């Protein structure tokens, strides 16, 4: 649909938030914790922080929680009763304060869960998520959204994108029919928009590499010293994958208590030594270098080969959170 522009006054933002809460929505928004901002279940508008470039955790948790119940079972003498979690009622969630990169991440993430198998639980959650994003007026050296087809004011994936204007009010770009519905339900808060320049409010994020060139280079780089060189300090944790808004590897765990139990889907990370370890004891990715290669190839070769877009949105979370300061841009620009 054609993007429609409106103006929303600063005080109306709080009113919109309260109306959504009053309407029974669960709102995840950035909340300060020490020096960090974390997407958290927020009930009060004043709990939201505006002081963040991106949050430390990613918004994927609302559609792909770190632990997701797939089904529960109960065994008795006569039969085993299975309750499929896909039949559960999932909450209506508003993601408030996502950045354009966060919103863009929902596109590759949704692709992953809709390949050969359409993941019912993921799709049920996704359908109930409404994204109210805020453009970026600040960036840092870890940001590279413009190198992966996004940008500080990109609208992809969002239902509504707010951009703070110089007077303190916000430009509201309504991107989807869901967004349009919200505007019509709250028409008193949205004014017909003037043609103010959005671009001048946005952060400048330099283009650091050409994604198509990287993809072409990676075809022939499977055996290359760069993987060991760039991952030498890797501590083998899963921080990069767990803060990533696109990473979607998971592991299945059964938790049994007597004659009943649950099957859970838990996040997994290619950084772990246990990742792809075979029962035989053989691991095709035995070293951190091989695991780091997997991470880069997955995002910049395998995903784009399949669906044209990268499995990365340039948010820079992996680099910011890495306890060993391993930087994905550093690897990509040195290929």
């Amino acid at each position, binding site marked *: 649909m054609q993007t429609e522009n409106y103006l929303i006054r600063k005080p109306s933002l709080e009113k919109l938030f309260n109306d959504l809460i009053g309407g029974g929505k669960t709102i995840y928004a950035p909340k300060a914790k020490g020096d*960090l901002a974390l997407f958290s279940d927020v009930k009060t508008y004043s709990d939201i922080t505006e002081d963040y470039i991106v949050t*430390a955790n990613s918004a994927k948790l609302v559609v792909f929680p770190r632990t997701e119940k797939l089904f529960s079972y109960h065994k008795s003498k006569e039969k085993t009763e299975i309750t499929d979690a896909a039949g559960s009622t999932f909450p209506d969630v508003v993601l408030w304060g996502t950045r354009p990169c966060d919103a863009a991440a929902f596109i590759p993430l949704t692709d992953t869960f809709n390949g050969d198998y359409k993941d019912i639980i993921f799709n049920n959650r996704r359908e109930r998520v409404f994204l109210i994003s805020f453009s970026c007026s600040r960036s840092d050296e870890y940001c590279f959204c413009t190198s992966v087809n996004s940008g500080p004011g990109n609208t992809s994936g969002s239902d509504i994108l707010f951009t703070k204007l110089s007077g303190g009010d916000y430009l509201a770009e309504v991107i989807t029919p869901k967004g349009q519905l919200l505007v019509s339900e709250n028409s008193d808060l949205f004014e017909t928009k003037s043609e103010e320049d959005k671009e001048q409010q946005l952060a400048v994020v330099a283009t650091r590499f050409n994604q198509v060139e990287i993809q072409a280079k990676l075809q022939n780089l499977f055996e290359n010293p760069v993987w060991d060189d760039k991952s030498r300090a890797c501590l083998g944790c899963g*921080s990069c994958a*767990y803060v990533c808004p696109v990473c979607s590897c998971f592991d299945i765990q059964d938790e049994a208590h007597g004659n009943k139990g649950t099957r859970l889907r838990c996040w997994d990370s290619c950084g772990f030594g246990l990742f792809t370890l075979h029962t035989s004891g053989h691991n095709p990715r035995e070293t951190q270098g091989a695991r780091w290669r997997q991470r880069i190839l997955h995002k910049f070769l395998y995903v784009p080969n399949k669906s044209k877009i990268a499995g990365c949105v340039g948010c820079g979370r992996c680099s910011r959170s890495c306890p060993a300061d391993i930087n994905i841009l550093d690897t990509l620009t040195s290929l």
Partner: protein
Amino acid sequence: MSELIKKAAALLESKSVQVVIGYGKGTGNRTRTIFATQVTECENLIFDSRCVQNLAVYLTKLEIKKLGKPAIVAPVPVLRSILQLAVENQITESDLVILGITSESELIDFESFAAIETFLTTHKIEIEEKYTKTIDAIKAMPVAERFAYWVKELESCFKCYACRGACPLCYCTRCTVDDNQPQWISVASHPLGNLEWHIMRAMHLAGRCTDCEACYNACPMGIPIHLLTKSMLQDVADNFGSYGPSLDKQNTLSSFKPDDKESFIR
């Protein structure tokens, strides 16, 4: 730190070591570990107050061991970890060269692990008052409140195990949390699974932790998990009289002595 650079370069030049593990410039205001295998790479070595990552963690990593005999830049927290690794028979004197750095940022040589222990007697682990106050306040809470405090603090934990990865003493090739036959503790990151993991981690470090705070510095969610290990340090000191690595006393909790107090048996 031109002296450090000179010394490191000389070690590589003379082939006394094959790699120098030290601090270099990272992104932003951060530092990044350097693994210098060439003399020229030593020029990138730095040392200042930002160099807080515990480099001892690399001494037991397979990928780093493959590089050959290391020299390691070791400020006081790293020295403590080296000594504890020695106590636990994970490293041997002849297999590494220590480029010690005092709290006054001066280079210091150590000919033996025993020399490190002697040096550390004047650099005892001290838990800062801001932490002892917080720990005392948590301990004074009624059980239910204390439980709720930790459930809340650990709420944002997603089990990335950065705390484990950054800890020089978490060198097990297969961590208990990764075992599934049988599964000892819950792998899932739900409130119970998170509690189980952090309690287990702290307990496994009791009497071993050298208070370097690498776990806390590594946590991407800023969870104060170092309060657990600091509290364990206090408990070990209160019950066993001392803490900190010691070649002579060995591990406080896993060494049996005939004259050990048995007052805990009821």
